[in-house]
């Protein structure tokens, strides 16, 4: 429905084609809604272009090279040489294939694609400025809008991503060479994933973290497994230090200065510094106030169970809609928003959002920790199984970590799982299904698990919680 020659209309306008936005657009179109998706940069958003996918590609590459080079115990002797430019090209090929796929899927489902940057004119139209000079702009009016503009890396004073040696995660994932020495500021999941990659590629990595442990938000015993392994890879940790500035060094490299709370200073020589201290939602460049929207103090758009903002016909999904800033949370919100607009009885009524960290070993968590279960008024029982007792883990050569299952003692309902170990990101899927289904510990243990698999460890942990473990002692 063309309203004028510079103004078009659409039933559903989606702003941003990351995993929140493109999924919302496809689902809206599948529901028969006339849908337009505006993207200023690249299809797939942060996730496909500068986040999940490129980081996981490098993690695979680094693991393969490292494992093959350290497998004498298995009788394998190799001295792999990594050509970072080649690995980057492989990664770029994957990204291109996936982003091209997203574009094709949008088109095949009938989504109208518009290239450009959207800003609100009022609560029922946006102006889209087309990229490049003299490309002009257009107005798009909408009945419903889904804001999915994602997030961007946070900067800290003294470290400007525009400076040559200061890298964001995006810059780090685009390097054509492996720096000899890298300082990583921030030991959150992005900092830890990338530190591990570079350490395995023979870079000397120093991690500086303001808090006193890696992976804030994860339980101590989970974080400890990852930290221990990182240390054994040669990563040098400095906790309780904030990065204050960087300067050119004498050796052609740089020097990164840090400060403790007490004002104690330290300096670390490096070639590059990667700043990975968190991400901020992109809500400041949209003229949100024109649509009657106001982000909260953290910059997020608050939403209800239908992914709806304070303005009834405007929805927000993905990183702009709050924590956890994870691709699959965004996609879920995108689907729900699209279905709600289509009149379906959809809601964000899931019980748990799983999360994975692709460190060595991986972490996969879902639902409540023991402490959280207690806070919620449950009387939790907990079962644990260490991977060093798993036959399958031994045969993979990776035995660090454990599976923990948290359940309600009275009812037996599974409330949560914390997995740190090989394939933890995959193993958590079964626990997530158990939680959503309202499965009990007995349901988990009654389900036959294939031998020999890592997934058996989930069963063993559940049996341990019931005092019936076969392959560990019950206490």
């Amino acid at each position: 429905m063309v309203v004028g020659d510079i103004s078009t209309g659409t039933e559903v306008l989606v702003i941003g084609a990351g995993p929140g936005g493109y999924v919302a657009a496809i689902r809206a179109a599948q529901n028969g809604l006339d849908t337009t998706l505006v993207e200023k940069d690249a299809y797939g958003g942060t996730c496909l272009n500068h986040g999940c996918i490129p980081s996981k590609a490098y993690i695979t590459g680094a693991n393969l090279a490292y494992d093959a080079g350290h497998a004498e115990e298995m009788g394998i002797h190799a001295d792999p040489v990594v050509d970072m430019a080649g690995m980057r090209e492989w990664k770029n090929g994957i990204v291109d294939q996936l982003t091209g796929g997203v574009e094709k899927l949008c088109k095949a489902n009938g989504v109208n694609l518009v290239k450009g940057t959207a800003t609100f004119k009022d609560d029922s139209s946006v102006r889209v400025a087309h990229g490049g000079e003299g490309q002009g702009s257009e107005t798009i009016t909408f009945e419903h809008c889904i804001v999915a503009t994602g997030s961007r890396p946070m900067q800290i004073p003294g470290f400007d991503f525009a400076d040559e040696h200061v890298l964001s995660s995006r810059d780090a994932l685009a390097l054509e060479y492996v720096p000899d020495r890298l300082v990583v500021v921030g030991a959150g999941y992005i900092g830890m994933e990338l530190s591990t990659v570079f350490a395995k590629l023979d870079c000397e990595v120093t991690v500086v973290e303001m808090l006193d442990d890696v992976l804030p938000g994860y339980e101590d015993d989970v974080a400890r497994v990852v930290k221990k392994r990182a240390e054994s890879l040669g990563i040098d940790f400095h906790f309780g230090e904030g990065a204050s500035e960087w300067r050119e060094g004498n050796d052609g490299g740089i020097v990164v200065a840090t400060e403790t709370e007490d004002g104690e200073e330290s300096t670390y020589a490096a070639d590059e510094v990667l700043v990975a201290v968190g991400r901020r939602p992109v809500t400041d460049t949209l003229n949100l106030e024109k649509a009657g929207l106001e982000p909260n103090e953290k910059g997020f758009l608050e939403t209800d169970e239908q992914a709806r903002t304070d303005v009834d016909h405007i929805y927000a999904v993905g990183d702009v809609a709050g924590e956890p800033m994870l691709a699959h949370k965004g996609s879920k919100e995108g689907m729900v928003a699209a279905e709600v607009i289509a009149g379906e009885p959809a809601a964000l009524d899931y019980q748990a959002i799983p999360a994975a960290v692709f460190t060595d070993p991986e972490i996969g968590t879902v639902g409540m920790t023991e402490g959280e279960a207690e806070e919620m008024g449950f009387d939790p029982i907990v079962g644990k199984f260490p991977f060093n007792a798993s036959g399958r883990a031994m045969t993979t050569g990776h035995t660090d970590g454990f599976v923990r299952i948290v359940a309600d003692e009275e009812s037996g309902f599974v409330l949560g799982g914390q997995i740190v170990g090989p394939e933890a990101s995959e193993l958590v899927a079964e626990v997530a299904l158990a939680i959503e289904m309202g499965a009990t510990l007995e349901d988990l243990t009654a389900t036959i698990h294939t031998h020999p698999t890592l997934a058996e460890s989930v069963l063993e942990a559940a049996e341990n919680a019931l005092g019936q473990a076969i392959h560990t002692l019950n206490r």
Partner: protein
Amino acid sequence: QAESSAKGGRVFAAPSARRLARELGVDIAAVSGSGPSGRVTDADVRQAAESEAGASASAETESEAQDGDGPRDVDVDRKSSVTKRGE
């Protein structure tokens, strides 16, 4: 039963049962579950919807007669939401 399954504000029911409850306008948190440990099943949700529909369509005395069902009792809010959907 309904109390223990709503511990910590949680309802133990499969996603499909939760969606069915929304479709039928039933507040699943107030449905007593017949599954293991009080898990709410599809059938529980349908039964709750039926007894609500029955309750709202018929005289008060009838809904009083169902008082013995306890947790499956209908609250006014949900009654109105069912009515709205029926319109």
